[in-house]
């Protein structure tokens, strides 16, 4: 029995480096199995994202008949927490603990919030939609409970993701840090694709009881996977605890000002904002667009999310290959934004006689573009970050990225409702308006980014020299 298991593990790790992008980040001290186990936290984050943006978005609008603007507000709740990612990253960089733990306490706290939000969410949604006796209940109960549930899940997933990524970068060498974050994002996408398919299958004959089972099941799986991911990843360390006790840290404002005053940083953040906004608006509208304008069923529209994530995975793969060859990350980022233009063109064309094939091609293209753009801008941010502030840098990127993605989602819902309420327009018009806005945003991202690469004709020589500051903040790797 046991031999089988170790045999299977050895097989898995031997095929890993060939087919999994970024797998070359593994070393003898930190084997790939350990990194993959850690990456399970990304799977739970992906699951939460799919449930919120994909599945519940559709279920609330179609099955529960909640007004689309209320749905948009609920889905925007996690956003209120997104700008705090920079603060969370900073706090975990400078955490003081008698046990010498920096990242684990935050991931655990985030997991609790995520679980709590999911545990309450199905009941909150049922009350919100006036199920059973809840028709007579005051409206604010359902609204505030659902808002709180979404807020908890959002807070939890931002905490888990920011600090989890920081923990992953702690485990590997400095020059491998962008790569390990890339690996983590690949696992996020696997989590999103997998859970999109699972949720789609589980909710196929929809019933309120099934909704409760699925969401609470997600809560239990979240806690289980996160505990498995964290097990023995960050060792208890009295020396580090003593160092933490003595360490003097600059205040958050100073650290933030320091990192954002680096050359090109603000412009990079603006590019990330525009590009993410451009790609983000579609996330929430692709499924209802497929359902209302092209007549696809729930199961079909959930598979759209899988297709989008599959495209993003391809984008990540291409980006990792190209970046490993030493291409300037900002150039790759511009390419990522450019690919979105024909992508959204095809999506628009689908309802103007292009048919479902054009729609699917468009969805795939925007996925690829989003993957290229995301990985390239993340790599650019991390290369620009000072040492010892990796949590802050990851948090800053995540804050801009998640805030814009969420704002885009909210705005998309509002624009659609406003245009829909306008006059006797066809069902597709509001969607097309949103897709046009996305085209403009991506074009803006390219325009802002162009001056950044105009000066750097010659790509930087790839692999940065390994300058291990031996002993100062070496990740503890003993697995006992």
């Amino acid at each position, binding site marked *: 029995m046991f031999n089988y298991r170790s045999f299977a593990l050895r097989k898995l790790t031997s095929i890993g480096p060939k087919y999994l992008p970024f797998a070359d980040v593994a070393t003898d001290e930190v084997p790939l199995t350990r990194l993959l186990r850690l990456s399970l936290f990304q799977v739970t984050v992906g699951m939460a994202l799919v449930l919120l943006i994909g599945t519940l978005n559709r279920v609330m609008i179609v099955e529960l008949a909640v007004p689309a603007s209320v749905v948009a507000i609920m889905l925007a709740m996690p956003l209120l927490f997104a700008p705090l990612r920079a603060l969370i990253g900073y706090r975990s960089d400078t955490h003081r*603990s008698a046990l010498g733990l920096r990242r684990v306490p935050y991931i655990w706290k985030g997991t609790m919030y995520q679980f709590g939000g999911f*545990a309450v969410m199905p009941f909150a949604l049922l009350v919100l939609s006036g199920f059973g006796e809840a028709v007579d209940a005051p409206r604010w109960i359902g609204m505030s409970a659902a808002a709180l549930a979404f807020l908890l899940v959002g807070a939890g997933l931002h905490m888990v993701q920011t600090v989890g990524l920081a923990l992953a970068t702690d485990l590997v060498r400095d020059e491998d840090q962008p790569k390990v974050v890339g690996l983590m994002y690949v696992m996020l996408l696997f989590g999103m694709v997998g859970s999109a398919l699972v949720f789609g299958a589980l909710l196929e004959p929809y019933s309120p009881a099934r909704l409760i089972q699925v969401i609470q099941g997600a809560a239990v799986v979240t806690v289980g996977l996160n505990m498995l991911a964290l097990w023995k990843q960050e060792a208890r360390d009295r020396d580090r605890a003593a160092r933490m006790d003595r360490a003097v840290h600059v205040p958050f404002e100073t650290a933030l000002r320091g990192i954002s005053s680096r050359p090109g940083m603000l412009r990079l953040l603006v590019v990330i904002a525009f590009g993410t906004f451009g790609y983000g608006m579609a996330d929430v509208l692709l499924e209802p667009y497929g359902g209302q304008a092209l007549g696809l069923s729930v199961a079909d529209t959930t598979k759209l999310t899988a297709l989008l994530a599959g495209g993003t995975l391809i984008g990540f793969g291409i980006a990792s290959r190209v970046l490993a060859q030493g291409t300037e990350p900002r150039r790759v980022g511009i390419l990522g934004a450019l690919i979105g233009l024909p992508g959204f063109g095809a999506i628009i064309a689908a309802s103007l006689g292009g048919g479902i094939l054009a729609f699917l091609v468009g969805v795939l293209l925007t996925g690829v573009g989003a993957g290229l753009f995301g990985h390239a801008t993340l790599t650019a941010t991390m290369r620009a970050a000072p040492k010892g502030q990796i949590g802050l840098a990851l948090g800053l990127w995540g804050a801009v990225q998640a805030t814009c993605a969420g704002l885009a989602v909210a705005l998309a819902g509002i624009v659609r409702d406003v245009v829909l309420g306008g006059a006797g327009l066809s069902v597709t018009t509001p969607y097309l308006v949103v897709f046009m806005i996305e085209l403009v945003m991506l074009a803006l991202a390219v325009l802002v980014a162009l001056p950044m690469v105009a000066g750097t004709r010659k790509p930087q020589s790839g692999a940065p020299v390994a300058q291990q500051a031996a002993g100062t903040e070496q990740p503890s790797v003993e697995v006992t």
Partner: protein
Amino acid sequence: MSDDPDKVWPTGLTLREAEEVHSYMIDGTRVFGVIALLAHILVAVSTPWLG
């Protein structure tokens, strides 16, 4: 190491370490308690029991 007066029997943690572990325990209990209360209230609103 073994003659550290701060060590607490039987875990071998120091007092501060033990207190930190305890704080996670307390926080967790509070959060889960509030969540359970909220979930019960919402269920009672939509499908009342004992009513």
